């Protein structure tokens, strides 16, 4: 059954285990490809991860003059192919979320490949496997639909879908405020 990366931003505790886990993926050479931000560090401890959303029609790949960014059959938008990437850095500017990173020494872009060595066989990505707060989860579409019903937000904005930023994404995001729709037990 196809699963997707699903994010519940409000859960994030800022532990950066997702970053540590990303350094451990096959072929990642100990460099993480994801980000965690302190939302308002002088005020509180809210944090949030920033992950590649694996756009259905990715700006990064569209902007690439060398076709170095391949899209896997699972929908994962892969890291730049070493033999094709010319180091122009178009993609780092094109991506509305600022995801692709650039290695100036190797003159090479690198980005989240959705742990393709794992997810191609249905194994959850490293970051979603370890995330202690369930900010990052690896779920079926049915499970995601159930989540959507459960957290019926009053502002209706619960996924980054059209018309926000870069159009439809393979990753689903639940914006802060997931507890708004929850009825208390007593």
């Amino acid at each position, binding site marked *: 059954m196809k699963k997707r990366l699903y994010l519940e931003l*409000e*859960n994030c*505790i*800022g*532990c*950066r*285990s997702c*970053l*540590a*886990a990303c*350094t*451990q993926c*096959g072929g990642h050479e*100990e460099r993480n490809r994801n980000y965690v931000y302190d939302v308002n*560090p*002088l*005020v*509180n*401890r*809210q*944090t949030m991860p920033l992950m590649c959303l694996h756009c259905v029609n990715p700006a990064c790949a569209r902007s690439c003059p060398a076709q170095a960014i391949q899209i896997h059959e699972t929908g994962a938008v892969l890291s730049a192919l070493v033999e094709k990437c010319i180091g122009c850095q178009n993609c780092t500017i094109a991506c509305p979320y600022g995801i692709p990173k650039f290695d100036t020494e190797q003159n090479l872009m690198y980005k989240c490949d959705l742990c393709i*060595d*794992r997810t191609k*066989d*249905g*194994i*959850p990505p*490293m970051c979603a*496997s*370890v*995330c*202690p*707060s*369930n900010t990052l989860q690896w779920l079926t579409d049915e499970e995601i639909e159930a989540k959507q019903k*459960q957290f019926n937000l009053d502002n209706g904005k619960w996924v980054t879908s059209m018309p926000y930023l870069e159009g439809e994404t393979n990753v689903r995001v639940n914006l802060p405020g*997931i*507890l708004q729709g*929850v*009825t*208390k*037990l*007593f």
Partner: protein
Amino acid sequence: MQRDKFFKEIENLRHPNETLVKTHCSYCGMQCGMNLRVNTETNKIIGVEPRYDWPVTVGKMCPKGVTAYQQTNHDDRILKPLIRDDASLKGTKEGFREATWDEAYDLIVKNFQQLQRDYGKDSLSVYSGVSMTNEKCYLTGKFARVGLQTRYIDYNGRFCMASAAGGFMRSFGVDRGSTLPWTDLHETDCLFIAGSNTAECHPTSMFRVWAVQERGGYLIVADPRETPIARRADVHLDLRPGTDLALANGILNLLIQNGYADEEFVNNHTNGFEETKELVKEFTPEYTSELTGVAPEKIIRAAEIYGKAPNAIVMFARGIEQQVKGVDNVSGYTNMALVTGKIGRPKAGVATFTGQGNGQGGREHGQKADALPGYRKINNPEHVKAVAKVWGIEPEEMPKEGVSAYEMFGLMEQKVIRGLYLLCSNPAVSAPNLNYVREQLKNLDFMVCSDFYLSESAEFADVILPTTTWSEDEGTVTNLEGRCIKINKAQDPLGESKPDWQIHVELCERLGRGKYFSHLKTAKDVGDEFRLASKGGYADYYGITWDKIEKQDGVFWPCKDENDPGTPHMFLDKKFYHPDGKAKICALPYRPPAEEPDEEYPLRLTTGRVVYHYLSGNQTRRINFLRDMCPEPYVEVHPETAEQYNIKHEEFVRLYTRRGEAEYKVKITEAIRKDTVFVPYHFGHDKSINLLTIGALDPMSRMPEFKACAAQIEKLELKKVQ
């Protein structure tokens, strides 16, 4: 067993030329399951793979766990015994030379025997820790009492779990850190969490904590700081450091006044209710607010939620325990569960977040000054008899009770203790009042340190023995639930390093005590003797075989025999462990912290952890990822307080108390009380916040008050260029 809604059948990723060794994290009491990836050609650990099949943590790990494997083949490993001939270099990294095990052992034996000849058996001491297996913890106790024949043994649990242990013993008559399995947490209706920065110190509990709120349940957090868990709490009780007992009494008073006491339960299963009811009357919301600084409405709301909740779990950690009234705080919060009868059934109970990996097991089996295996007491003649029999000594040969960890430094000052064998601990960072402690380490006649890295404490040693990391040996550990689990060996010891149990056996043989130790040839041999030694004690592990652990995903103690599956839930029969079978509701008069702020030192200093580091940081500060994330300590200051002192974000200040001082970078945050500053304690040398903390001890647990003392800040105009 206990597979819940979070458990999913997931295959692991397997690389060619690799095997996966199932084990658990080396660090905290969560003991997250993990697979170590081992290259089958080099037989070396090369990475980590989540352990989705571990029911408590289902693959989850914090960043310490993810990178834990990097400890084993780290460049900083000590590979051979080290000897330092020039004692004037003590307190530095300098002067060590490599030696053979024979030479190191000979030197230790010569000095230990000399000291004991000149000053008596008790001139030697053992200072241990609980970040190691039950087998090692058990044998360390025997090593001190039978091998070295000294009364002075104690351990770093005095800075960790001793107050929880004391409080549970008094309230329940037994000290199992959690009355229920962690797989109950997300199903309760209310979590009341006091003095636990859970998101940073036990991160893999968090998916269960958030799940309570997702179901519509409540989260109440008591903490001077708005920690990541407090940020999302339904009620955040933002109390002054060191005032927990007032808060606990205040809430208990409201629970009783508002009719939430369970009379049937109180009458049949507890003692002490009436007396306690009288005592807490005084703690009205207004008076409680005056003492704690928490708004009365919040106290009222918290009591209402806890009182109404069909099921609730009271949880706490070092925040309430590392105080001069730590034991009282534990019993005080435990009172809430006993008065309302929310205990002794699934989804309701009391738990402490055990700090160290084996903080539970390590305190049960005789490394504590007053304890023998199976949670027996060394001043109980029956208990002594039982253990002496297993050890093959006469009861009269059992040394008497010693003193607590911090008090050992006092005896070093008085030259009562002259020799030290230190293992699995780094008191030169983790003890309070460090200027004093470091002085005592320096003045020892002879000190041995067993470690796998050159810790700040090892810098005081004459001999350093290279021991193994957790991944190079096997054995059992008891996690924060009270579940005994198996640590598996993933690679052979690096260099000439040896596991501590083997070092103890070999050393005892050379000390002429071989007949009590030579039969222990494997970790399993030690484990079997340890099970036997615990048999019949409160913490009975006799029925916990390695096979059963494998089959059942761990075994909860007590577990008395082969057919006993163990005890995931405590007190289901409403029987407590006091002789009359009743629990004790404790009447606890409030007392303030040992050192209150005054004109000279107007701020409250509290200390704690960050998610990236473990305890003294001896391990985690060496791991690139963790060090990069938090390379140095800092002091958290509220913006209004910072303004008073005219200090800005990231400027440097001198923070000082009556005991010491240190310089820190300022981190401005509204997520702390205005009267309180916070510094993480994982750092060594002149960066240690414990240079400033106070050595005041809880009268029962002998736990120092790390969590509250009086301090002052001074802005540093010019930061010296490093």
